[in-house]
């Protein structure tokens, strides 16, 4: 039979396949050059980029949890100008779509970074991170109320002319309301979910494991919640959804498509198997062939239930 068609289209932007990497889990891509051909991926989202250089939170920043982990990196990065000058030139020639995850504490900062990203020719889009649970002000605060989610999306939309993906927080009562608010302000796509706020405690020392006490939970533990949110949001909005949360293999990725995602991002799994993304790609192709499905696009929202 014909080779499976893996191309997808997220709001006008074509990806050669639906497997992207999640911000903060894939560095700038080149960290994986020894393990895989990064060009094989549908897209990569580089780590959270803020206007200014940030040192991030103090060590320890990581705690292993059942089928998952907590992190409190806290957006450590060299700032948007450094990215544009020093990192972008090194990675722009990857034959994959590179998205910059734009993070911040103030709306003006988001706007400034977004403006700077307009000028980077080989950056076809940004992922607006309004859901980082690991910084004191801003971050998640924007993503957990409709008015603030609306406000920051609107401000960035006004200045940013390419693909605007907005990344939603799962730490909310109704993610659909936030999704609709953001869609209403002109987002081109939605990515979800960011991490769930959690704590790990060391019973022997009677201290929190993380320097920040709370951190963001990722990994397979959160997959059922992520699938539910993708499914709910896909019923509530028209723009495409990029699903993530605990994807470890092709079957997990397919579940996200069935729930309503057009593409997926792989996060924590990269730490455990740095070649996992290409294995997921192969597995998706194998699934499509085995089920005689021509295009991966036919899986989006194809869960039979209602």
């Amino acid at each position, binding site marked *: 039979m014909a080779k499976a068609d893996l191309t997808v289209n997220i709001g006008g932007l074509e990806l050669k396949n639906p497997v992207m990497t999640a911000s903060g*889990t894939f560095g700038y891509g080149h*960290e994986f050059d020894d393990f895989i051909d990064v060009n094989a991926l549908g897209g990569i989202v580089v780590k959270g980029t803020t206007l200014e250089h940030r040192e991030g939170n103090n*060590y320890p920043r*990581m705690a292993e949890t059942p089928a998952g982990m907590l*992190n409190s990196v806290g957006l450590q990065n060299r700032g948007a100008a450094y990215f544009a000058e020093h990192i972008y030139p090194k990675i722009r020639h990857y034959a994959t779509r590179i998205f910059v995850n734009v993070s911040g504490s103030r709306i003006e900062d988001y706007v400034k970074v977004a403006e700077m990203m307009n000028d980077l020719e080989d950056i076809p889009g940004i992922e607006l991170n309004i859901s980082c649970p690991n910084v004191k002000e801003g971050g998640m605060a924007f993503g957990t109320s409709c008015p603030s989610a609306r406000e920051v999306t609107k401000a960035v939309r006004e200045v940013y002319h390419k693909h605007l993906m907005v990344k939603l927080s799962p730490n909310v009562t109704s993610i659909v309301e936030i999704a609709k608010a953001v869609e209403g302000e002109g987002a081109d796509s939605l990515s979800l979910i960011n991490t769930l706020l959690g704590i790990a405690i060391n019973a022997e020392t009677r201290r929190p494991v993380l320097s920040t006490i709370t951190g963001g939970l990722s990994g397979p533990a959160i997959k059922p919640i992520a699938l539910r949110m993708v499914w709910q949001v896909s019923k509530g909005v028209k723009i495409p959804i990029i699903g993530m949360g605990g994807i470890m293999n092709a079957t997990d990725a397919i579940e996200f498509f069935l729930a309503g995602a057009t593409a997926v991002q792989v996060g924590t799994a990269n*730490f*455990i198997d*740095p070649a996992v993304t290409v294995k997921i790609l192969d597995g998706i192709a194998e699934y499509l062939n085995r089920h005689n499905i021509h295009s991966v696009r036919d899986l989006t929202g194809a869960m039979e239930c209602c």
Partner: protein
Amino acid sequence: MPRKTISTFSVSEVIHLSPDTFVMHLQGVPPLPEVFAGQFAEVEVPGSPDVFLRRPLSIHAADRERGMLSFYVKTVGKGTRRLSELLPGEKVSVVYPLGNQFTLLNSGKVLLVAGGTGVAPMLMLAQSLKGAGAEPTLLIGGRSASDIHVTEAYHEAAEVLVTTEDGSAGIMGRVTDHPVLKENFDFVRICTCGPDPMMKALAVIAREKHVICEASLENTMACGFGACLCCVVKTTEGHKCVCTEGPVFDTRNLENW
């Protein structure tokens, strides 16, 4: 630096040195990539329901031609316990070689100081230093004689000194109490791996003696190759990843050392 790889090894032997210390020998497909003293691996813990992430372990020995990789491990929790129970033939996935290395001086006396499982990278380091033309002395500290596992290979590579807290082997006390650090100190450098307080005390001694101290850190890690930014240490130039810019650091560059 050699390319990093993910490779599947098969357990050839787990040798128990004491109730909580073991050496794990793995067999892979030769030739292995080149490995330098101080580098580490991220080792899968197979078949463990409670372990999600790989475990970082210093490379204790590597035989490129024969495809052997060895680790020197202390059982401290669920992951290391499961590794200690592996049976010959079981498969283990290993991501390696990771991190930088100790500086290989080609002359002069170098003092290697190991506490606990800090001994893991020291045999290879002593051998490499000797091969390069330096004169290594290896000072190993433990609580008691049962913590000290020095084989012939150690004596071939270095002059070996021992301290134990209970005096059951070598000199009684901690490594920092050993006379070699006091009278006639004629080392050009200290290389150390072990508990932070021990390494910090050595950094202070090195500063007094006006020599460089290289310390190998063991921060908790999620990835081991620079992707997660979880393993940072504060340096004079801000946060650095222990997994890519370390694990070996010149202690002058570490904040509060």
